[in-house]
């Protein structure tokens, strides 16, 4: 602070003025600290800088002094100030300490000027030059009469700076290295302050003022830093940093402006509390992720194919077969994603197997495969990253039971609630939860009939397992049946859509069924919610996988069929060419003059799979929306309007209004996403459909929840459930990754449709690219990398790494436990001491009893509660002879409170640490008179 100023001013002030200033600086520093940031009165533009610098100066000068003198090492800051000033004033300074007051004014004034000059970067080199010279001369005459360490140091510095400025003639700086480093440090500190000011628990006014000061300080001194050639670079760096920060802020502003639905979610949040809102936040997150997937898929696969690929009708795979052409535009056919839909960019089969398309030579097949993999890669990365971030924010692991009541008291109110009804519910739920805890506390377990409950729980689980198995079997049965149906033509609408209907119905019926069964179990609602989620999850997963296995059966049968068609058509083609060449005696083979619609083609299992997933998704959307419309909206309308003419109160009584089903909705979303991941490879259009779905569902559900639902009677907090959702999503991602990767790696692609037709395996497209497009050595590199000899060690290495990390984390956990135990012990001990009762800790008591016979020891020391001393003293007396022990004891007991209290504290954590070791003579005088040093 003022210290800095004085340093700067040292460079040109008159010698004796300088001494004054330094004295004033000591005072001013103390004063500055004492008064906080109260500005000095004389200069207007300087006063803002003064205060924080004063504070800073007080901090900063300590290390400097330490370096110079090696004195006062063990003293606190305040102690530091006093003696220094005294000594300085009494012994060394020409002017007495009394003169300080009068001198302060003009020193401040001078300082103001000085500060400006030192800070004025562009102030002119001549000025700085002269300053340097002055400093030099001054330093010389100073050096004669002063022998104070500090001054010596200062002088040395000045010499440095002057020599610098004299020798280096082109770019002089008035500051020496040390000062510069200090200033730099200070600027850095200010910058840090600017960056962190929002985290400081200060009043806004103070924050604003401090911010302004810091900014001005930085502006002023930043440019002065750096020297020689580095200076320009430094200035450039500073400028770029500023620009970068500005850009970041603008970008941040832009980004938050781009986050949609903030208001909508807030509205929901204030009505229903954070748990319902967490669903919508999750939905929004999902939407963001799908938008990226959509961009990838459409930007790299669909749009290029549409723009640069062959047009519709040019090749068989892009044409509706002759047999289907009559009905290809029928609504019902299109709704089944057959007809024109089937032969469009929405599905795998439409894509051509040309290696490159268009003028740009876009490698579509490669891009298709990479996008398919990239979709998974991106999703995986995003989910895991979000999970890690959430876990980071999540704070400590809620150690259940330790703070039950305190947590309930201080964290149970949801500050987001802004709706009277929700608030009432919240009050009620908080009251109940308190009552529950009280009851739990009073009689730790109230198992009135544990056998009955156990029986009921087993029964409930049994029932649920049964229904899970039943639903799985039902789906398997339906899929099998649909394969039979596939060979027939006379199908009713129901028979065609049986599979989707059954799956959606199961999803609709089972969760409420589970909920009803769960009533039997009588769990705490939060635990019940978890069970419910787990069960629905199992249901959906079972359904999905049954569906998948059935699909694989179908795919296998299609593969066989395709094989025969492929053979037949190849044979026909060969015959044709043979005839062609024989008849026309012309060996160049032109393809048969056949309309692409008439070509016999294989079943194209990829498209079939894609269609299945699209149909499933669409029917899921329909069912979800209809459920909301009927289950919530119609119910709300009926309850609302029939209530006027009904024999009981509909609103309070039986049907009532619906509650927002968080778990069901979240799981629905998660499974929907799983289907998207699985199906996206075979139906690139699916991602687009999903984006539309999420978008509409955001608006629709927001409306529905606000219009038709009532807040939960027992409002749950969304505690950590965020990561719970993410965990589910990760699991689903993994599970949906498996079948896709399996099909890519093992099944042969169809011979006449899709970007990989004609290849033995889909990933051959990568091999092809490596061979044809990349230089040869990369190909060999890849072959080495694919060598099992390399892969196995790599896997081993990873296993080792996992093992290592695992054990490290275990060790951390152990040490955590250890610390926790220690804290607990310290706490107990403290409590016992407070209560002055016998320590409950038996071991401690025994240990105390085992201490050297205290009764033999001389009279107890004055402070009986200081345990460390108690322990220390008797041992000491033991060691010494009995007679002497008394004296020694007294000495110690007199001396000990002081050093003991001061010993650990007097080492400030910051700048003193690495400083020079305190020499034997450097101990403060204070310690000498009062007995042995503490250590």
């Amino acid at each position, binding site marked *: 602070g003022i210290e800095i100023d004085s340093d700067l001013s040292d460079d040109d002030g008159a010698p004796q003025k300088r001494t004054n200033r330094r004295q004033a600086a000591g005072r001013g520093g103390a004063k500055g600290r004492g008064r906080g940031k109260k500005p000095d009165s004389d200069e207007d533009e300087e006063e803002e800088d003064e205060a924080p610098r004063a504070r800073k100066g007080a901090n900063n000068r300590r290390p400097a002094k330490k370096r110079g003198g090696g004195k006062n090492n063990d003293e606190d800051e305040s102690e530091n100030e006093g003696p220094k000033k005294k000594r300085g004033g009494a012994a060394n300074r020409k002017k007495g300490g009394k003169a300080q007051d009068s001198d302060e004014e003009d020193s401040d004034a001078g300082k103001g000027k000085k500060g400006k000059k030192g800070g004025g970067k562009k102030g002119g080199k001549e000025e700085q030059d002269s300053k340097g010279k002055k400093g030099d001369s001054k330093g010389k005459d100073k050096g004669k009469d002063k022998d104070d360490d500090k001054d010596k140091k200062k002088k040395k510095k000045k010499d440095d700076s002057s020599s610098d400025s004299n020798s280096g003639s082109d770019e002089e700086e008035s500051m020496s290295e040390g000062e510069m480093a200090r200033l730099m440090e200070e600027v850095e500190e200010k910058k840090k302050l600017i960056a962190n000011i929002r985290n400081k628990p200060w009043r806004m006014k103070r924050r604003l003022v401090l911010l302004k000061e810091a900014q001005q300080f930085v502006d002023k001194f930043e440019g002065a830093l750096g020297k020689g050639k580095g200076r320009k670079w430094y200035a450039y760096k500073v400028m770029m940093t500023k620009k970068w920060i500005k850009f970041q802020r603008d970008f941040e502003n832009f980004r938050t402006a781009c986050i949609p639905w*903030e208001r909508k979610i807030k509205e929901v949040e204030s009505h229903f509390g954070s748990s319902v809102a967490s669903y919508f936040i999750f939905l929004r997150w999902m939407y963001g992720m799908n938008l990226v997937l959509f961009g990838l898929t459409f930007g790299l696969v669909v749009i290029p194919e549409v723009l640069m690929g062959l047009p519709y009708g040019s090749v068989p795979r892009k044409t509706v077969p002759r047999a289907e052409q009559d009905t290809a535009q029928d609504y019902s056919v299109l709704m089944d994603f057959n007809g024109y839909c089937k032969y469009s960019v929405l599905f795998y089969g439409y894509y051509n197997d040309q290696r490159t398309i268009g003028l740009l030579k876009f490698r579509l097949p490669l891009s298709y495969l990479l996008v398919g993999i990239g979709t998974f890669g991106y999703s995986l990365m995003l989910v895991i990253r979000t999970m890690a971030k959430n876990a980071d924010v999540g704070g400590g692991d809620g150690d259940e039971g330790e703070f039950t*009541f305190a947590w309930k008291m201080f964290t*149970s109110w949801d500050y987001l609630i*802004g709706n009277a009804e929700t608030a009432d519910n919240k009050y009620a739920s908080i009251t109940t939860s308190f009552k529950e805890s009280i009851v739990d506390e009073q009689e730790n377990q109230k198992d009135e009939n544990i056998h009955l409950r156990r029986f009921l729980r087993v029964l409930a689980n049994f029932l649920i397992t049964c229904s899970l198995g039943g639903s799985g079997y039902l789906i398997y049965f339906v899929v099998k049946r649909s394969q039979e149906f596939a060979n027939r033509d006379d199908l009713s609408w129901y028979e065609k859509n049986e599979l989707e209907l059954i799956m959606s119905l199961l999803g609709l019926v089972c969760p409420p069924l589970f909920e009803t069964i769960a009533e039997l179990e009588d769990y705490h609602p939060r635990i019940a919610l978890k069970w419910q989620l787990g069960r629905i999850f199992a249901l959906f997963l079972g359904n999905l996988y049954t569906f998948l296995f059935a699909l694989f059966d179908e795919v296998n049968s299609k593969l066989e069929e395709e094989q025969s068609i492929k053979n037949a058509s190849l044979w026909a083609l060969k015959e044709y060419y043979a005839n062609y060449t024989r008849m026309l005696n012309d060996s160049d083979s032109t393809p048969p003059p056949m309309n692409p619609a008439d070509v016999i083609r294989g079943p194209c299992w990829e498209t079939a799979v894609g269609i299945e997933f699209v149909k499933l998704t669409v029917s899921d959307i329909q069912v979800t929306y209809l459920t909301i419309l009927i289950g919530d909206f119609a119910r709300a309308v009926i309850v609302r309007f029939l209530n006027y003419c009904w024999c009981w109160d509909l609103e309070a009584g039986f049907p009532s209004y619906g509650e927002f089903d968080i778990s069901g909705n979240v799981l629905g979303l998660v499974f929907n996403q799983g289907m998207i991941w699985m199906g996206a490879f075979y139906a690139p259009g699916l991602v687009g459909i999903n984006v539309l779905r999420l978008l509409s569902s955001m608006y629709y559900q927001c409306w529905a929840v606000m219009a038709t639902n009532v807040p939960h009677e027992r409002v749950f907090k969304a505690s950590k459930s965020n990561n719970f959702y993410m965990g589910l999503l990760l699991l689903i991602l993994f599970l949906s990754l498996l079948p896709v990767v399996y099909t890519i790696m093992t099944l042969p692609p169809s011979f006449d449709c899709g970007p990989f037709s004609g290849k033995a395996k889909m990933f051959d497209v990568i091999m092809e690219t490596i061979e044809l497009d990349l230089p040869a050595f990369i190909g060999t590199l890849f072959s080495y990398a694919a060598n099992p000899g390399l892969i196995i060690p790599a896997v081993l290495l990873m296993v080792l790494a996992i093992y290592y990390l695992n054990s490290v984390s275990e060790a951390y956990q152990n040490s955590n436990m250890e610390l926790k135990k220690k804290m607990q012990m310290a706490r107990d001990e403290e409590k016992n001491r407070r209560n002055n009762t016998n320590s409950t800790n038996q071991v401690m008591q025994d240990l105390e009893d085992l201490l050297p016979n205290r009764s033999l020891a001389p009279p107890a020391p004055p402070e009986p509660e200081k345990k460390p001393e108690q322990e220390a003293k008797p041992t000491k007396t033991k060691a010494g002879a009995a007679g002497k022990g008394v004296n020694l004891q007294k000495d110690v007991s007199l001396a000990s409170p002081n050093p003991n209290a001061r010993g650990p504290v007097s080492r400030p954590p910051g700048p003193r640490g690495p400083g020079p070791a305190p020499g034997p003579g450097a101990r403060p005088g204070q310690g000498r008179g009062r007995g042995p040093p503490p250590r």
Partner: protein
Amino acid sequence: MGNKQTIFTDEQLDAYQDCTFFTRKEILRLHGRYHELAPHLVPMDYTNDPDCKLPLALIVNMPELKENPFRNRIVESFSEDGMGNLSFNEFVDMFSVLSEMAPRELKAIYAFKIYDFNVDNYLCKEDLEKTLNRLTKEELTPEEVQLVCEKAIEEADLDGDSKLSYADFENMISRAPDFLSTFHIRI
């Protein structure tokens, strides 16, 4: 875009953005909200830092705070005079601390202030009783309140002075799983 310049200068907005967790747009919206509370008192032009404070009664009627059982305490602890009169700076400060982005440490400090009803920098038993009564709308019997408060103190009190200092509170709250998700207000 036009009114942006008339309410705050760019420097002011930058300063606010440095000092709070808000973006420019949000600060302007906050000003809008603040202005809305008392259109005749709050000027639309903040470029020269007008000295203007709104009384507690106006602020606690914001929909964000209206249902909060601690609304008076929130406003009081953010006001410089302790009476709940908030200048715009303090208003912004309040919502900044309560925003989603604010770190746990900062929130903990202000939560402590909010729950400290008698402003003695300790959460003593009567503070807890008041907290509890507000949370439950005084539905618990006095014995129950007594029990809960004792339990809470016993759980969180590290130094055994049967009141919670900030260190105790911080230690307790830093491990609470729900604190961050519930101690925030979206403006």
